[in-house]
């Protein structure tokens, strides 16, 4: 009988993001099966929303995720506004899109850095994170916060883009555009990146569609689906952008889509600054929401985000269902892991941008002999480097 080794990775992995565990069965260096355990981060937010008022829930929604806090808050507000039948001012719609795109830029820069880290290329991590600070500065300039911008409220946005900020925001976008073009160049030309990502973890178009993948993962498999284009919200109906797809269906494709989307986002941000309509930034919303329901969709940096909101006429919601994009990508993630080298597990899981990886401790359990060996991802990286010959 063939020896099958199960390698649990996680839940403690020191760099970033949530605790989660991957149980990876390997045959030699090849992964044969992967199981993902994500319960570590379960806090019970959906239940908590039912005991809070709509305004209190805004704060909770932002804290569903720290990287895409604007996404959750916007998605939630849109749903509640739909039930209320509230038409928000034009200017608020543009500002929501502007912040949403800045958030996408910071999230994708974040991803490029982490991807660099996962393939043992920390220089890229330091580069992108230095540039990412510029986005955080811009967000701070508008909202007062680097993370958790607290821009949304039911009926519009809480802070305006001031006239005197326009120039420095433009300069910031100019800087980012130059850097983003450089990163697209790095991803398409740099051998270090290409060798570790081309042809790895294939996800054929049909499989991606069947397993309901979302976001850059899906677009990297040549499916043109983007909520901003298909089901426009905020100001996206009036903004010009193209949906980036590739047909390589591998890790590289997912990275290329993300890097190219930064350029599209900058284009949209510039357009918002040019065409920002005047007027109010919010309308007053009643505290009580009449009975009704709404399905709200949003294209978060990681893909389609969907909130289902049901109200019962009081000032607290009856039920809020949140489906974050990462959950939609679990199934494809375990599919993609099958057949890759153990050393590539880090970059493959990171390719869907799940909030995992880094130097987690790894326990190797040899089932047939009942042995336990303990190693770290760093040791795995050394094995990988020996294999690919990259110093």
């Amino acid at each position, binding site marked *: 009988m063939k020896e099958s080794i199960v390698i649990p990775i996680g839940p403690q992995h020191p760099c970033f993001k949530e605790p989660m565990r991957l149980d990876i069965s390997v045959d030699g260096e090849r992964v044969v099966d992967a199981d993902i355990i*994500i*319960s570590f981060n*379960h806090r*019970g937010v*959906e*239940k*908590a929303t039912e*005991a809070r008022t709509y305004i209190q829930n805004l704060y909770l929604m932002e804290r569903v995720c720290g990287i895409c806090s604007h996404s959750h808050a916007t998605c939630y507000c849109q749903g509640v506004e*739909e039930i209320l039948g509230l038409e928000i001012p034009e200017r608020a719609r543009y500002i929501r899109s502007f912040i949403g795109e800045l958030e996408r830029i910071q999230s994708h820069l974040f991803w490029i850095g982490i991807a660099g880290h996962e393939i043992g290329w920390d220089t890229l991590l330091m580069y992108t994170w230095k540039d990412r600070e510029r986005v955080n500065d811009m967000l701070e300039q508008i909202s007062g916060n680097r993370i958790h911008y607290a821009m949304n409220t039911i009926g519009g946005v809480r802070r305006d883009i001031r006239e005197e900020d326009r120039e420095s925001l433009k300069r910031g976008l100019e800087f980012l555009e130059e850097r983003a073009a450089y990163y697209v160049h790095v991803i398409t030309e740099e051998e270090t990146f290409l060798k570790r990502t081309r042809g790895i973890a294939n996800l054929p178009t049909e499989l991606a*569609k*069947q*397993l*309901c*993948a979302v976001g850059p993962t899906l677009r990297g498999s040549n499916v043109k*689906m983007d909520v901003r284009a*298909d*089901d426009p919200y905020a100001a996206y109906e009036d903004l010009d952008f193209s949906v980036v797809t590739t047909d390589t269906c591998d890790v590289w494709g997912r990275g290329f889509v993300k890097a190219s989307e930064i350029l599209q986002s900058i284009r949209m941000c510039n357009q918002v600054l040019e065409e920002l309509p005047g007027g109010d930034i919010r309308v007053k919303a009643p505290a009580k929401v009449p009975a009704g329901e709404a*399905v709200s*969709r949003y294209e978060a940096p990681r893909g*389609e985000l*969907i909130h*289902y909101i*049901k109200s019962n006429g009081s000032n607290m919601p*009856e*039920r809020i*269902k949140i*489906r974050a994009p990462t*959950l*939609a990508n*679990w*199934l494809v993630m375990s599919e993609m892991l099958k057949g890759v080298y153990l050393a590539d597990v880090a970059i493959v899981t990171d390719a869907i941008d799940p909030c995992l990886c880094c130097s987690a401790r790894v326990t190797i359990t040899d089932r047939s002999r009942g042995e336990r060996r303990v190693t770290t991802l760093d040791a795995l990286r050394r094995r990988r480097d020996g294999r690919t010959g990259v110093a």
Partner: protein
Amino acid sequence: MRSEEVRGLIEGRFPGIAIRVPRERRVMVHIPLERLIEVLGFLRDQGVTHLSTISVVDRIEEKLFEVLYHLYWENNEITVRVEIPRENPVIPTVTPVLPGALTYEREIQGMFGVMVKDIPDPRRIILPDDWPLDVYPLRKDYMVQ
């Protein structure tokens, strides 16, 4: 595709079905449980492959669970709704029709105790390992201390 066209398409195949279009790009379909696979199969044959998620609403006063399948097709969010009795909450698995439903079926099974018949992988996905097996936190009668 316009939402009215989607509505026409579904009504053409299933006459008398409860269907409404609250706004453009949203279609709400309400069907009895025994037609669930049939309707989803029909939609699949039309080209619907993307299941966004499955939501459950606990309507405790009416002793019902409402199960909603949020599908996405050609710019339309199609919500298929079925109602099941609260004392015997069983739904058939839709994974033969929509393989991507597995994650969400595992989720609702753990969170609501809505049992999914013939589910390929019955393990819970979200709750902690030592969470009691018969406690479903998102039900309305589960109170937070």
